[in-house]
């Protein structure tokens, strides 16, 4: 089935939030909104001054005193203010909101507000321990220990006896790896429209906009506006990309627009332009990961000792769960009896980092897979053999002691990727090429990895997701979920699933616009969970609808389903009529209660997770993948270019070939950008290169065709056997490309992005240059033993 809304998008008919015009239904003209932000990374607000040259009566002005409820954006820690009241923790922190009918007047007004902030000492490097005056979090902890300052979350995974295994090791290999931040660059910037319906105590705040999670936004509005759910309605509009950037961040915009709309009693439109979006929105967490690995003489893993530090930025946002996914994926898809992982995310005074496709796993898998190549190099082993010998087999357990028994042939994934890439032929060809070519160097590298789909641990149980499928009077059905379409194909896949389940043609399946007043909460559209988990609930709701119609599970055709739905409604109308005739009260004609099939999440049997000890079944299912990158480096320009890319994955079941392939190809290219070009210039903890001119994402001319293959091994608890794939392709490109560059240049890169500047340092190292990594910093090392044998950033080069 082709993308259902595809023709509307290709001909410009699809309406996004900035294409909608707030109505002028007696409430006056719609207003545009703007945000006045901090220019200081950390400090105390002394005063806010309004330039008297501006007629401020023409503006709606909102500050923290206009917030009816709690001044926090509801999320994990409830620590981030909606609008800074007395202190700021990062540049671009919102302080004041303005609204006016004219956008140009608004731009002038933003510049006419002067916010005087007394600066305090900021932190821009989480690897340097904070001075006492820099401590901003954890200070109220009764047993404050050294090293706990500013730590938002700490996680530990322990399996076996790591120290004993190190004592018996034939080889010990160390390495520290760093990854940079990344901006989502969804092509549609953040935006919402807020308006008020009704009057007085019954009025309803309605926010429509570009978002992944309408119920997150509703919850945040309820807390900040001190309103019941019935008085806050959130509607997702067609969303031009998300990648995690519209998971938690739109909550803040929604509150801002709602505050202005409440004060103005008029519709308010808040749309960021690209510059503001790049500067102020969340990004991928920068990371530093240190591996210390014990191996036997044949290269079998004996113990993995892993330290992870993530820069969380100024507020907690989703950092603890990003860290969690990073920690759980850090040991890779390998068998190892003894594992110790320590992770922490730490406050800095940078613009807060947040959800981004992969959610911590790309960072730790970069370190893991780069480290596997380093191990192979140091032990003189073939990098493929090293991975094969340690690859998880059915019956083995992961770092969290989750026993893998899914029947997947993980080595077949490696086989197919190597065959498609021409791995061995190319390795030989590159040796010849590099020996004769004066300026160009070629190399090939791989990454073997996994990605867990759905919320971590007990997360799906807590979400308690619900889905409904309504039978409509005309015999069609409507799928009611909160799952948002942001390009990944939710509308099309849910249409397919419901149509297949009920035997109906696709055009007889409607997909409801996610609207908190109409759809049940099926959870957020994140964590590669939509097709696998919510899709499975759609199937079960279809089954429930059949049951309610008295139809058997399989026997009845689509025609029978349609007839039964129509008959149900006719029968219902008759009963309504006769009950009206009986009561004769000429009563209010109530709209028909819907004919609903319903489903609620049930954890697959036998899935156990211990959140205290971080042990057990972290995910219901993992997708397994091997990616191979071939690169060419130009020694004159120091630029690296991916010239071939192969992505092979076992994803349970392919629901839609074109959509699945598109997800993988798009994710790989986003990964190529992260690996090679998407570099940040930080100024006072904020993005200084906040323009697409100098924050460089790949164009069509920068990347090759991404060659994709799928293997199937149906997962019994996913829709039609599918496992989640949305985030998977973000994990592999970073390490595969770095490994290919290592092979091309005989260097040992430890960080991405590998921009020409970084490559120049690798190829022609300046001896006295400080390592860009922080493995020399005690902050990274939780235990004294871990500092022993620490290497510089460029071992082997």
């Amino acid at each position, binding site marked *: 089935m082709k993308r259902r809304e595809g023709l509307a998008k290709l001909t410009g008919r699809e309406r996004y939030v900035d294409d909608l015009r707030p109505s002028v239904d007696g409430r006056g003209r719609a207003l545009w909104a703007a945000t006045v932000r901090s220019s200081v990374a950390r400090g105390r607000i002394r005063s806010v001054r309004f330039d008297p040259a501006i007629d401020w009566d023409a503006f709606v002005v909102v500050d923290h005193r206009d917030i009816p409820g709690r001044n926090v954006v509801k999320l994990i820690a409830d620590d981030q203010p909606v609008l800074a009241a007395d202190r700021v923790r990062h540049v671009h922190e919102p302080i004041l909101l303005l609204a006016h009918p004219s956008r140009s007047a608004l731009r002038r007004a933003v510049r006419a507000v002067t916010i005087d902030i007394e600066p305090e000492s900021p932190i821009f490097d989480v690897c340097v321990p904070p001075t006492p005056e820099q401590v901003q979090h954890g200070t109220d902890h009764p047993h404050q220990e050294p090293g706990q300052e500013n730590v938002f979350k700490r996680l530990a995974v322990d399996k076996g006896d790591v120290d004993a295994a190190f004592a018996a090791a034939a080889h010990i290999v160390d390495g520290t790896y760093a990854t940079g931040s990344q901006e989502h660059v969804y092509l549609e910037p953040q935006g919402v429209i807020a308006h008020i319906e009704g009057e007085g105590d019954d009025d309803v705040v309605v926010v429509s906009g570009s978002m992944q999670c309408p119920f997150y936004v509703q919850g945040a509005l309820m807390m900040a506006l001190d309103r019941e759910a019935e008085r806050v309605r959130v509607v997702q509009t*067609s969303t031009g990309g998300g990648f995690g950037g519209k998971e938690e961040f739109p909550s803040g915009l929604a509150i801002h627009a709602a505050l202005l709309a409440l004060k103005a009693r008029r519709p308010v439109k808040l749309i960021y332009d690209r510059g503001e979006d790049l500067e102020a929105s969340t990004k991928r967490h920068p990371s530093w990961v240190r591996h210390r690995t014990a191996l036997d003489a044949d290269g079998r893993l004996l113990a993995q000792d892993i330290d992870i530090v993530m820069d969380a930025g100024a507020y907690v946002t989703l950092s603890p769960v990003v860290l969690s996914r990073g920690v759980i994926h850090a040991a890779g898809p390998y068998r190892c009896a003894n594992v110790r992982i320590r992770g922490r995310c730490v406050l800095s005074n940078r613009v807060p980092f947040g959800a981004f496709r992969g959610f911590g796993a790309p960072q730790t898998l970069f370190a893991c897979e780069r480290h596997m190549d380093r191990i192979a190099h140091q032990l003189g082993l073939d990098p493929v053999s090293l991975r094969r010998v340690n690859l998880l087999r059915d019956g083995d357990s992961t770092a969290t002691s989750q026993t893998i028994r899914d029947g997947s042939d993980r080595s077949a994934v490696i086989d197919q990727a190597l065959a498609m890439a021409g791995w061995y032929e190319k390795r030989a060809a590159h040796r010849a090429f590099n020996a004769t070519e004066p300026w160009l160097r070629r190399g090939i590298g791989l990454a073997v990895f996994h990605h867990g789909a759905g919320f971590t641990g007990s997360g799906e149980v807590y979400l308690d997701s619900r889905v409904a499928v309504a039978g409509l009077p005309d015999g069609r059905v409507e799928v009611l979920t909160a799952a948002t379409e942001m390009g990944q194909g939710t509308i099309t896949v849910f249409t397919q699933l419901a149509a297949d389940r009920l035997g109906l043609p696709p055009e007889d399946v409607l997909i409801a616009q996610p609207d908190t007043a109409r759809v049940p909460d099926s959870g957020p559209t994140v964590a590669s969970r939509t097709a696998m988990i919510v899709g499975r609930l759609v199937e079960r709701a279809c089954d429930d609808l059949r049951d309610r119609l008295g139809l058997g599970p399989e026997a009845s055709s689509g025609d029978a389903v349609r007839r039964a739905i129509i008959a149900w409604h006719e029968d219902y109308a008759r009963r309504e009529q006769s009950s009206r005739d009986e009561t004769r009260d000429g009563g209010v004609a109530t709209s028909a209660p819907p004919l609903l099939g319903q489903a609620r999440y049930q954890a697959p049997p036998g899935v156990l997770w211990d959140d205290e000890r971080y042990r057990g079944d972290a995910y219901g299912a993992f997708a397994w993948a091997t990616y191979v990158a071939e690169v060419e480096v130009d020694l004159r320009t120091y630029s690296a270019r991916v010239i071939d890319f192969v992505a092979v994955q076992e994803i349970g079941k392919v629901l839609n070939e074109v959509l699945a392939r598109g997800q993988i190809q798009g994710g790989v290219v986003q990964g190529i950008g992260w690996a090679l070009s998407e570099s940040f210039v930080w100024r006072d903890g904020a993005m200084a290169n906040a323009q697409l001119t100098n924050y460089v994402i790949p164009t069509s001319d920068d990347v090759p065709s991404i060659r994709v293959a799928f293997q199937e091994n149906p997962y019994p608890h996913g829709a039609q056997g599918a496992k989640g794939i949305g985030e998977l392709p973000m994990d592999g490109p970073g390490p595969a490309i770095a490994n290919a560059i290592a092979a091309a240049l005989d260097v040992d890169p430890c960080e991405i992005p590998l921009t020409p500047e970084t490559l120049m340092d690798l190829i022609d190292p300046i001896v006295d240059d400080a390592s860009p990594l922080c493995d020399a910093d005690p902050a990274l090392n939780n235990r004294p033993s871990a500092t022993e044998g620490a290497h510089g950033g460029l071992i082997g080069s």
Partner: protein
Amino acid sequence: MASSDLDARSTSTVARPTSPVATITGAPAGDDEMVCGEGSGEDGTDDCIDIEFSLNGESTSVLVNPADRLLDVLRDQLDLTGTKEGCGEGECGACTVILDHLPVNSCLVPAYQVRGRRVETVESLTDEDVAHLHASGATQCGACTPGVAMTARWIVDRPHLLSRHTLRALMAGNLCRCTGYDGIIEGIELDLTAREDAQRGSTG
């Protein structure tokens, strides 16, 4: 299922009757003070210029401010919201329209410059025009898509360009963050092949 595509998102009220979503609509702005655009810069004058140009084949007349961008005039005054603003600085190509014979970033074109010229926007494309892009997976989130579709159309109308440039180089002015470009490239190739076949059929 061409026509039902429009109805993929239902707005019928089934689960719980509430006021319809239609309080925000695609209707024109009704912005009573806005006789012409308000300009993208702060210091735009209030003087409006009356310009006439060909828009998707029809003669169109509109009052613009000297500081108005073509993008804003199309979107705000003519209600052609298919053309998107992705970056506002000519990098992303989401706002691509065809001006006379060239694809341009409409965020960088002062509106008054199109006086007497021909402008084609994504609204000029029919479902048939984009069928191959649809089949190949050229659109995901759709935000870059109108620009992609216009550049694609421009290339397909000028296949001789491919004797000197690669398709990937010709498309490099349109950033896409979803597809990884393969779906786009494949769709244009399908289109080029179909056109070639059609021409061969008509001449041979």
